[in-house]
């Protein structure tokens, strides 16, 4: 029994750390961190971290490989979009072009990494320079505004980037609350359906009380967040995109063959190859996904800022990498989860925002970020040592 509790604690250490951090700031900001508006900002400001980290996770799974270029690609894609939207091209065509841009970057980098065996660090370092440069070329060094309101509203920029309330609630956004309730209901049904089917087939299941606690905590937190958002302006559109990305990538990593191959290549590439799996395709797949996510992040970042500029996306790749590692992805590959990166991204986001509200000097905020990354890894290394 006591053994089980420690193993649960270990599994959810970072989630617990997140709760502790939130409580810390809740006290030190006099409740400011959990104001509806701040929760809304936390999501909107860190949207790119969730999206990029999802793509980055796939790369890291294949063996601790990272993509240094994705920050530059965010800028590059935003630049392309801003330039073509200036020319009054249909917004959806523009969005498609931006996503294709991200995809092509993924194919470009994936090809060199997977088929020519250029080390990912170097291939993407080259990309980091080249795409930053190309963004400058496209924008000719200037900032370009984006005025298309459809684009801004759909991708979480401007002042109307919220799902309109179809019920016209008086004090709060009822649609937002309803969406939260539906999401939680679906979640609960899925958990228990899979539990019942596992029980029926007499598989081992985790004890009922731990499952109940887990479901209860997640449900309460989700409903509570939606309640808070409902009390502000409602459901931000960007949250829909984040949720979509996280759901898709959870599914890919957990349920698909390709997802399994990512873990297998990171765990033992030779054995995977001899099992009839072409590891080159696996690398290629990972970097294509990274490219696509860079494209989407580029769209979200441009929409949020309402403009594209040559310095956009600077160091975003590092935020994504940090979110993965804080979230428990192994620097050697083969380990990590989407749930983990969500926690990782939230920890960084909360610390950033908490310190801003507390009025900590911005220079110190970066120092703290660095220390948090280090602490997370130290903790990971130590707890792994104990396991042995």
């Amino acid at each position, binding site marked *: 029994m006591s053994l089980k509790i420690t193993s649960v604690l270990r599994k959810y250490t970072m989630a617990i750390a997140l709760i502790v951090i939130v409580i810390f700031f809740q006290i030190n900001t006099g409740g400011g961190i959990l104001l509806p508006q701040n929760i809304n900002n936390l999501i909107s400001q860190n949207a790119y971290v969730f999206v990029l980290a999802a793509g980055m996770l796939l790369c890291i799974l294949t063996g601790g490989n990272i993509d240094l270029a994705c920050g530059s690609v965010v800028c590059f894609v935003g630049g392309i979009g801003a330039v073509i939207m200036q020319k009054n091209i249909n917004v959806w065509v523009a969005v498609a072009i931006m996503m294709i841009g991200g995809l092509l970057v993924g194919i470009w980098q994936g090809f060199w990494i997977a088929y020519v065996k250029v080390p990912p660090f170097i291939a993407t370092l080259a990309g980091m320079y080249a795409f930053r440069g190309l963004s400058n070329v496209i924008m000719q060094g200037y900032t370009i505004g984006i005025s298309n309101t459809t684009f801004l509203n759909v991708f979480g920029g401007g002042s109307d980037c919220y799902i309109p309330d179809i019920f016209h609630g008086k004090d709060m956004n009822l649609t937002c609350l309803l969406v939260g309730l539906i999401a939680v209901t679906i979640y609960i049904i899925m958990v228990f359906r899979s539990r019942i089917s596992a029980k029926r087939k007499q598989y081992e299941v985790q004890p009922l009380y731990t499952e109940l606690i887990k479901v209860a905590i997640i449900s309460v937190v989700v409903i509570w967040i939606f309640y808070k958002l409902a009390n502000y302006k409602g459901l931000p559109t960007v949250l829909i995109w984040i949720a979509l990305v996280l759901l898709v990538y959870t599914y890919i990593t957990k349920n698909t063959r*390709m997802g*399994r191959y990512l873990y297998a290549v990171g765990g*033992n590439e030779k*054995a*995977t*190859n*001899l099992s*009839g*799996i072409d590891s080159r395709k696996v690398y290629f797949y990972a970097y294509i996904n990274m490219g696509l996510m860079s494209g989407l992040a580029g769209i979200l970042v441009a929409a949020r800022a309402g403009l594209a500029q040559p310095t956009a996306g600077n160091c975003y790749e590092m935020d994504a990498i940090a979110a993965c590692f804080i979230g428990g992805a192994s620097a050697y590959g083969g380990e990590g989860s989407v749930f983990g990166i969500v926690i990782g991204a939230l920890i960084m986001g909360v610390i950033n925002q908490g310190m801003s509200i507390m009025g900590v000097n911005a220079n110190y905020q970066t120092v703290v970020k660095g220390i948090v990354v280090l602490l997370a890894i130290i903790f990971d290394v130590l707890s792994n040592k104990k396991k042995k």
Partner: protein
Amino acid sequence: MGKVILEMKNITKTFPGVKALDNVNFQVEEGEIHALVGENGAGKSTLMNVLSGIYPHGTYEGDIIYNGEVCQFQKIKDSEKKGIVIIHQELALVPQMTIGENMFLGNERGTKNAINWNETYGEADKYLKMVGLSESSRVLVKDIGTGKQQLVEIAKALAKNAKLLILDEPTSSLNETDSRALLDLMLSFKKQGMTMIIITHKLNEVVYVADKITVVRDGSTVETLDCHENEVSEERIIKGMVGREITDRFPKRSGVEIGEVNMEVKDWTVFHPIYAERKVVDNVNFNVRKGEVVGIYGLMGAGRTELAMSIFGKSYGSTITGTMQLNGQTVNLKSPREAIDAKLAYVTEDRKGNGLVLGKSIRVNTSLANMKGVSQRGVIDTDQEYNVAVEYKNKLKTKTPTVEQSVGNLSGGNQQKVLLAKWMFTNPDILILDEPTRGIDVGAKYEIYCIINDLVAEGKSVVMISSELPEVIGMSDRIYIMNEGKFVGEMKASEATQENIMACIIQSTGGGDAA
């Protein structure tokens, strides 16, 4: 008799949840070669780690008395200072450094701030001469073979002024000739008064070199046999190791009908992937019949693994020529995937390096080579995958609480079973098993043999590559003998003896260097 140089008294070492050593008593006399034998996990290595200070004093109970004084080693350096030097199973050399640099790594010659290279290499050459290695100490370690690397390890130990040398599985990666040379070297050290402890699985080596044999079982020393009092046979040692008499090391196979030719390989030649002019496999012809166990015997480095991997979808070698027929059809398998689809399976000799994803569970490893078997349209059915893993766990009697256990935590024998399960799940007609019992204990070996018998009873064919003669003779229907890349003999198992197999090899060895 000589005086007792080392005595380990009432040693007890516990890890969380496990008692690895339970009140062990162990005595070594000066100038003898003492063999420590036991199944995997019996506690041999733990005992030696206690002795050498890897587990510092205080983490275990009991006393170590060396040369009459009680020792409390805190770290490896402490025991090395006393002349107790351990050579680990995995070679601990840096490939990119020279022999001399490796030998004095952490023990550099010269002053505090500068290394004296002349002294380093001069000294190194001196020790190399002592171990009979005719290489310059300025050669890079990666440029010499594993046999020579093992000698470098020993020279390195000598350079530390070793008086008690502990060798942990020193021959596990050596071929027969190199192994014999190493054992002879040990015997010559003994003449000069060195005391040695050898841990090994190879009982013929134990019988060859040991003066005394201590058997460890389940964390306790069971008995110490004196080889000079009366002849100790391998069977006698096995009896001590497993605690019962094993009457037959190889299970009988009866009533398996050998059918028509299943696989035929003709004029198969493979070149080295890097040194493209070097033939690794030279014009090999062989065939396998349904329901047959074909043994391929050869020393390590004979090209057996290279042959198997080149057949298995060209996963080894550069230019490969020759033809291959499966069930009368000529096939050209270009990747492991195509080989698997052609119902071929290759179970690697290197289960940790090439076989298993150690950090992942038994379930994940079992399905890895046949993911289509547990998924629809790219989506994995985890329930089905779980069922498959459990089915094979029961069938092969894999010892584990659950199939969610990560493979890295299993013993060698159980890992081998998971690897077999993975390939059996691809439903092959022909299984190539490369050293299927390497590094696993006697009990598990027997179980693997039973699995092989079950496989051929189902009408599958098994090609078993092995460098253990008794195993090849005991398990095969037909034996091919391989040497220096060529097949140099073929015989029925009923006609094979250790003598005539070795004779084939000796006759065919064309004056290559025997280092």
